[in-house]
């Protein structure tokens, strides 16, 4: 299993500002993902964080709005840029060690934009 530390756990931000969320894993993992969970909704994949290269974004998500870094196999950041109230969601980091294993999730970052 993998233990994921996600920071901050929650934040309240002003519109127009940016927030960077950190995801730290206690072991090297092959795959890291960032999901968004809007209020009362399911999880939607934002992007796959690729180590040492640009992230792979899903349809509807762009790098300018959600820049992602992954400098090594245990750490990644997601930035939510130029925030608006529509960005109020829970953002979750997820990791998988190998392709035939389950995904583990961080506790999430509950973001409220006012």
């Amino acid at each position: 299993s993998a233990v994921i530390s996600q920071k901050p756990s929650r934040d309240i931000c002003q519109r127009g500002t940016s927030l960077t969320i950190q995801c730290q894993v206690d072991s090297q993992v092959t795959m890291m993902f960032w999901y968004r969970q809007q209020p009362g909704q399911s999880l939607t994949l934002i992007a796959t964080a690729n180590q040492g290269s640009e992230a792979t974004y899903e349809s509807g998500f762009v790098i300018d709005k959600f820049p992602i870094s992954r400098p090594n196999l245990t750490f990644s950041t997601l930035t939510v840029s130029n925030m608006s109230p529509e960005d109020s969601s829970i953002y979750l980091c997820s990791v998988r060690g190998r392709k035939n294993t389950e995904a583990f999730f961080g506790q999430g970052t509950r973001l409220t934009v006012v």
Partner: protein
Amino acid sequence: AQSVTQPDIHITVSEGASLELRCNYSYGATPYLFWYVQSPGQGLQLLLKYFSGDTLVQGIKGFEAEFKRSQSSFNLRKPSVHWSDAAEYFCAVDTLGGSGNTGKLIFGQGTTLQVKP
């Protein structure tokens, strides 16, 4: 494209009663399937998974699920529900095996379980 459907958005059962949460998937090959649970304010915890082999899989907290290829279903069951089982339940399918082998998961809409005393 792969998809996951959980037909029941909200289910209420009495404590001690049996439970079945439905999950249907759309996928060309044999999928990898998961059930996760999310308690209020928490992240997701894996209940059980199906990769291959026995189609009846046992998970944590007394949950089990059965993979039925003919029905494209992976329903979650528990014989006797406890008040602590009240949470959001998500079914997910692994896109692994399809083109790209990305390893990402596609989630259903979720089912909210309420347990009556």
